[in-house]
């Protein structure tokens, strides 16, 4: 091989050279080049190594279908593996390196695996699981070997420094593809006043028109249409943007490669932008991809798609080689042959069909093309690149009928017809239809209400037909949009020489073989995944007769290119083996994305800190200022502990909890869920959602309640206060607030529509602090006015309203810590002020803040259940809460809680554990009887654990089978993860002050 830049031609800016490097070697690159055209222009014949056999690979195509030319792009944190050279625009400073090769692509030691290739045949890896290897670890050896040898690019482990954006867009009409037919569709609709978005994956508009010679008639048409489109403010044009997926309700996913053509994003732009386009109508004009012909050594550098050689010559001014053999089964190669000959190449057209129309033959001969008919290339010759083609007479099935003759050449262009790009249509509507004339899958007859297809995608052949189909599709959408075509006509369709299309007189052959259907040398179907014709044959003979199974067994079509050039050949080969037609053999079900999408683009800003919303209490700033270590509780940030000096978590929470029991502490409980339950039927509603009764609760009182799920398990607990006749204030746990509200709304809006009740979340409207400890009342009496909170006037489960620091507050008397305690509810906006006043006034009483860890220690000492016990698998009985359940009324879960399995006496029930030694138990540890083997799931588990400052040793809450009957028994507490076994005694879960004298003080 040996590509070179022609002295003239191409749509590149020859006045500027760019600094572009591949494996350290400088390339000849101009603005307008892709990395592939620059590589080709610089004579870089080997750009990659094969996936399995590490064979030398060159550039194969000029577009998204590329199977070979994948490289590492950029260095450092912007390093990008598997960048497609054929669609990567060059930029100054571009630094690309080859992947999957050592020491480099030119001399890859891994190519030696070619000699081991019998071990890499279809299904090789699967076979290491069975037969003589079954039960051995042979597959592991093979896996490590395969992993090293196979594969694509190398990822990096540093964070992407760039940002990504997400955008929602809305339009009347989305046109995907800005080739001739797409431009015609967009202009037709735009002139009629439709709100149009036109999307093109290339950096230039024009599609295949860009592959026509510079300065020709197509350029005039293109310029005129572009200028008219630019004058229409209702047409948005997105270049460098791939429509990668089509979804229900006419939503399309796009990725705009905003800065991928630059070394680094500029002007605060994102690297990529993910668009979700919601459109009323769509015109899909995604073109067609040329199909290869398969023959021996068809992966040699220098074997290329015929149309891509034309693209490189005309668009980039690069000739892939001086001596070009074109091997074709259809008419589309005629134009390629003539244009390449005009571009000074020495061209031989080998046409598999026996006859050629005389006028075409004359035109080719006049251009200097050597013609061979009834023949095809059966093998490429050369070691590191094409040096010759073996040409043989063939019959109409592609079998050799004579002796091959060697023709010297450095490029072999192949054309086996064209495959319409039906991917987006198929994402929505499933299986495409097989068009016999074009020997290709085209969109079926459904979806026309909102999706039109046009151009090569529907196998329109000539430029005129393609433009007309684009106009027709646009008019169909205008009709649906109830818009009238403007009557302005498009520029006259240009006439191109030999604009033949591919379908007329096509000879539908796919592979060139000897008379026995074999090839001498590897003949690749899926070049990217190194799947050969012989692999398909072998898989078929092993019983993989369904193409869906065969695909997975051989992995054909499963590489990053997703078989864009190979799928149809696989189908054709299986059809041939089974004697069926192609459509009866199967189709490919296309799924998004059309081309690989960077995960970063889908993620957008939603990562790191912004992965999910963070909720903060209105007191958050104070916690931070006062050295709190925070912990996450769902979306909430809560103070975990407030270390003094170099205190550890353990030292801090023990100090904080002990302080509460001795003096007074304050904890921010603003994260509790708060729900206003209002309406004449509020009490009835509470009666139904809680297990306990509510009809007797008086205004000014509050009551602890427990809720079940519909299936009878405990869901949540909390206190509800009756503020007025029809006005209740429900609190839920931090974790379950959303669940409780959603269930309440569901019941009220469906089954209980007769209840006159409103439920409203007021979590964010109210801050709440618990003030707990023997000095709590003294402290509050010193700051509170307007209410009597003396022991006599305000027992537990009462609330009062009063003022603290000129702010109206509500004081609930109830205790979670087991100490004399109050919860203070303050409107959020005033809460920081009130908190500050309490802290200030509290100094005289020794008030200290405490965090969730100390709060947990205090509640475990009291045997109060919390999230670790109410974990979705426990019943009222399991948790010792059965006494709360009313037997006089039905409530959510009241019937299902009595399912036999939930009332089994052997169920694990809540107990306390007095843990021996200084090391506390780990939550989740399993319980085994003393002296019993530590096997299986044990007889229970530890749910919550702490060091008890009040008792002076570690304690835990646990659920143990027959727990209540086993008081006093010694058990083993086993943490299998750390091989830790502790001894503990089963005790009452009410470790401290079981009579509640302190909280009633």
């Amino acid at each position, binding site marked *: 091989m040996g590509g070179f830049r022609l002295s003239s031609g191409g749509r590149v800016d020859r006045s500027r050279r760019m600094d572009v490097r591949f494996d350290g070697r400088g390339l000849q690159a101009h603005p307008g080049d892709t990395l592939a055209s620059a590589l080709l222009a610089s004579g870089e014949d080997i750009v990659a190594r094969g996936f399995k056999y590490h064979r030398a690979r060159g550039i194969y195509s000029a577009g998204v279908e590329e199977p070979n030319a994948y490289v590492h792009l950029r260095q450092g944190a912007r390093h990008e593996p598997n960048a497609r050279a054929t669609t990567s625009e060059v930029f100054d400073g571009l630094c690309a390196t080859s992947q999957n090769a050592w020491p480099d692509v030119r001399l890859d030691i891994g190519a030696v695996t070619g000699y081991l290739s019998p071990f890499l045949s279809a299904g090789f890896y699967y076979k290491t699981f069975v037969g003589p290897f079954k039960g051995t670890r042979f597959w592991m050896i093979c896996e490590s070997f395969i992993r090293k040898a196979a594969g694509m690019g190398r990822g990096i482990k540093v964070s992407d420094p760039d940002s990504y954006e997400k955008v*929602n867009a809305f339009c009347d009409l989305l046109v995907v593809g800005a080739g001739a037919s797409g431009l015609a569709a967009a202009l037709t609709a735009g002139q009629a006043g439709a709100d149009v978005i036109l999307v093109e994956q290339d950096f230039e508009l024009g599609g295949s028109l860009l592959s026509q010679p510079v300065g020709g008639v197509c350029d005039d048409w293109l310029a005129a249409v572009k200028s008219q489109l630019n004058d229409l403010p209702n047409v948005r044009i997105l270049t460098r943007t791939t429509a990668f997926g089509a*979804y*229900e*309700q006419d*939503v399309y996913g796009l990725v705009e490669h905003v800065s991928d053509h630059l070394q680094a994003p500029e002007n605060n732009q994102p690297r990529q932008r993910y668009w*979700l386009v*919601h459109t009323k109508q769509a015109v899909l004009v995604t073109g067609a991809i040329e199909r290869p012909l398969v023959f021996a050594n068809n992966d040699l550098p220098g074997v290329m798609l015929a149309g891509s050689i034309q693209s490189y010559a005309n668009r980039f001014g690069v000739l892939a080689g001086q001596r070009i053999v074109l091997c074709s089964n259809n008419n589309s190669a005629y134009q390629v042959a003539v244009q390449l000959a005009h571009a000074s190449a020495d061209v031989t057209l080998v046409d598999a069909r026996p006859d050629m129309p005389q006028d075409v033959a004359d035109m080719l001969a006049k251009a200097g093309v050597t013609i061979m008919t009834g023949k095809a290339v059966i093998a490429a010759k050369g070691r590191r690149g094409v040096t010759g083609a073996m040409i043989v007479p063939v019959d109409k099935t592609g079998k050799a009928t004579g002796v091959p003759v060697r023709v010297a050449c450095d490029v072999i262009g192949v054309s086996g017809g064209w495959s319409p790009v039906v991917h987006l249509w198929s994402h929505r509507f499933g299986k495409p239809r097989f068009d016999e004339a074009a020997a290709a899958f085209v969109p079926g007859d459904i979806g026309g209400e909102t999706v039109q297809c046009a151009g090569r995608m529907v196998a329109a052949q000539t430029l005129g037909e393609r433009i007309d189909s684009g106009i027709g599709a646009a008019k169909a959408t205008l009709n649906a949009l109830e818009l009238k075509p403007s009557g302005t006509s498009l520029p006259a369709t240009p006439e191109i020489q030999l604009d033949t299309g591919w379908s007329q007189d096509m000879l539908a052959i796919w592979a060139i073989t000897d008379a026995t259907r074999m090839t001498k040398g590897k003949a690749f179907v899926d070049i990217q995944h190194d799947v050969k014709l012989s692999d398909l044959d072998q898989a078929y003979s092993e019983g993989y007769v369904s193409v869906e199974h065969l695909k997975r067994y051989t992995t054909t079509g499963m590489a990053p290119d997703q078989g864009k050039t190979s799928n149809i050949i696989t189908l054709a080969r299986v059809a041939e083996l089974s004697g069926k037609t192609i459509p009866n053999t199967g189709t490919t079900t296309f799924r998004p994305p059309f081309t690989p999408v960077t995960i970063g683009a889908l993620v957008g800003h939603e990562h790191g800190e912004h992965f999910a919303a963070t909720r903060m209490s209105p007191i958050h700033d104070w916690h931070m200022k006062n050295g709190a270590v925070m912990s996450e509780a769902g979306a909430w940030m809560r103070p975990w502990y407030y270390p003094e000096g170099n205190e550890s978590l353990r030292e801090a929470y023990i100090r904080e909890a002990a302080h509460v029991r001795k003096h007074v502490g304050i904890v921010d409980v603003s994260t509790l869920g708060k729900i206003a339950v209002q309406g004449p039927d509020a009490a009835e509603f509470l009666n*139904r959602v809680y297990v306990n009764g509510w009809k007797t609760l008086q205004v000014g009182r509050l009551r602890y309640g427990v809720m079940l799920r*519909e*299936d009878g398990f405990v869901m949540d607990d909390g206190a509800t206060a009756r503020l007025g006749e029809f006005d209740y204030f429900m609190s839920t746990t931090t974790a379950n607030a*959303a669940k409780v509200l*959603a269930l309440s*709304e*569901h*019941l009220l*809006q*469906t*089954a209980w*529509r007769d209840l006159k009740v409103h439920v409203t979340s007021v979590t964010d409207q109210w801050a709440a602090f618990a003030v707990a400890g023997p000095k709590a009342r003294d402290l509050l009496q010193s700051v509170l006015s307007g209410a009597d909170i003396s022991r006599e006037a305000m027992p537990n489960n009462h609330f009062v309203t009063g003022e603290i620091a000129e702010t109206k507050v509500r004081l609930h008397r109830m205790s979670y810590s087991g100490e004399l305690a109050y919860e203070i509810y303050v409107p959020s906006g005033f809460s920081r002020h009130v908190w500050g006043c309490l802290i200030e006034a509290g100094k005289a009483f020794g008030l200290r803040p405490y965090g969730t860890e100390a709060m947990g220690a205090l509640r475990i000492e009291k045997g109060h259940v919390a999230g670790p016990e109410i974990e979705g698998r426990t019943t009222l009985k399991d948790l010792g809460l059965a006494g709360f359940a009313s037997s006089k009324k*039905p409530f959510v879960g009241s*019937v*299902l809680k*009595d*399912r036999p399995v939930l009332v089994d006496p052997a169920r694990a029930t809540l107990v306390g554990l007095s843990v021996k030694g200084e090391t506390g138990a780990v939550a989740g540890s399993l319980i085994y009887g003393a002296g019993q083997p530590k096997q299986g799931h044990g007889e229970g588990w530890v749910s919550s654990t702490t060091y008890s400052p009040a008792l002076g040793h570690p304690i835990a809450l646990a659920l143990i089978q027959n727990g209540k009957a086993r008081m006093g028994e010694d058990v083993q507490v086993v943490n299998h993860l750390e091989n830790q076994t502790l001894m503990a005694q089963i005790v009452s879960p009410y470790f401290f002050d079981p009579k509640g004298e302190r909280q009633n003080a």
Partner: protein
Amino acid sequence: MIRIDCPVCGIRDESEFTYGGDATVVRPAMGEAALKPWIDYVFMRDNPRGAHREYWHHVVGCRQWLVLERDTLSHMVGTCSLARDAA
């Protein structure tokens, strides 16, 4: 990726809603004491291929529970009504 025509808020993106399960099941009356009707209500579900009625909760919108017709095969959505108005 579906959009739901909320009767209160208009056409909104799927991401504003949470799925709430089968809307064809009917909750037994509060006084129902037998186990079977509750087991059917909580656990037993058909898995229809095609047209289906489902609850969706406009959880970051109007907080209304909706009954949406959705085709489980094509993922196409039909009419959407407030659950409180549903028959």
